[in-house]
């Protein structure tokens, strides 16, 4: 019985493809729903600060005076609550994971258009 099971498994394993991906050669495909990382379209942002209030890990900080939106990727748990809460729908969830971080930096999004206007006036 045991020998039969082993032989059967050996043959199955010999003639089927490996269960794992050969990673660097074959990239993993993410599903449509995968919660990867938060994307920001700064053009649409009105800096209302709702995302900052809703964030469970306080990863997002919004500075209305300087027109800056910052996110700390290492703190973000990609729950997607900010995406649901955003009134202007400028936040979105990308299905690719974010790159490994090497330092605890904040990723800064600044609205260049508004800043230009500020210096012109």
């Amino acid at each position, binding site marked *: *019985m045991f020998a039969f099971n082993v032989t059967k*498994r050996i043959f199955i394993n010999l003639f089927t493809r490996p269960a794992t991906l050969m990673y660097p050669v074959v990239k993993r495909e993410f599903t449509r*729903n*995968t*919660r990867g990382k938060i994307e920001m379209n700064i053009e649409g942002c009105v800096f209302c600060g709702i995302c900052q209030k809703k964030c469970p890990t306080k990863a997002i900080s919004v500075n209305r005076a300087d027109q800056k939106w910052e996110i700390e990727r290492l703190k973000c*748990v*990609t729950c*997607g609550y900010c995406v649901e809460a955003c009134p202007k729908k400028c936040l979105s969830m990308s299905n690719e994971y974010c790159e490994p971080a090497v330092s605890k930096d904040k990723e800064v999004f600044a609205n260049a258009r508004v800043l230009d206007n500020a210096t012109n006036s």
Partner: protein
Amino acid sequence: MSRRTIIPFGPQHPVLPEPIHLDLVMEDEKVVEAIPSIGFVHRGLEKLVEKKDFIEYIYVAERICGICSFMHGMGYSQAIEQIMNIEVPERAVFLRTIWAEFSRLHSHLLWLGLLADAFGFENLFMNCWRVREKILDIIEETTGGRVIFGSCKVGGVRKDIDPVTLKRIDKLLAELEKEIKDISNVFMNEYTVKRRLVGVGVLSKEDAHVLGAVGPMMRASGIAQDMRNLGYGAYSKLEFEPITRTNGDSYDRCAVRIDELFQSISLIRQAVDKIPEGPVDVKVTGNPDGEYFARLEQPRGEVVYYIKGNGTKFLDRVRVRTPTFANVPALLKLLQGCDFADVPILILTIDPCISCTER
């Protein structure tokens, strides 16, 4: 009488995925007594309820445990919904049940793999986890997360499953059933496996009752108690019987979990057939005021959520009694008089989840 020695076991040990420490009082090769100490991964998640409002806390509740994450979120939201008298749409209830059973499937397969690894059957371990991978893939496709589902919220669920995917789930279940049957055949009938499990760590029916064991641990000893019989979620509309065995040894605990795999598959099938159309969430207004005990059946046993609200958006108290915590006294009883070589297997058969226990 031979001399007694104390052998420290853990917090780091190849068989333990999480840290628990046991002082084993030994007489020659026999364990006389085991003294546990826990507290290595305490994170203060219950205290955190004072800082997060009750809607946000669901994200914390889901992160209490990495394996039964969905059921923690489900227990928390059920308790809040009861306090606030929220009527959850039927479709959301069915979706929650489907995801809960998927998480039971992946948890039991993970445990089977770890058990195989603990008695040195590396090949079987890999086969279990290969099957588990398929379940994780379908979970990722439907909820967006592989481990932390993040799809449960107070008042319903955040994601819907479209009919095409539901059909695919049905097809996947047939595939899974076949593969799990292959694996269970090895666990149940193989000589090597039986030698390590049969008759090891017998917990009698009386002991299981007196020591308050829960879940598969208790059912393997012959007590037919399953919290799903309370009829929370969609379980009142699905047909199933609690699975029990009578011997209460490690082999029976393994058998109960294997049978529960097939039970979960049948439950998901029934839920997919019966799922009604409709909305998946309702709007939540107001703040919880009152207290409630929610009891759920997790893969490891019964979990109790106690929640007390005070009419503001911050809750007064959240207390979680997790299944592993209830099973630790039974584990200590099992360890008395066992061989030193059996200690890893015995610790594993209660399916320890230390992060749950210490929160």
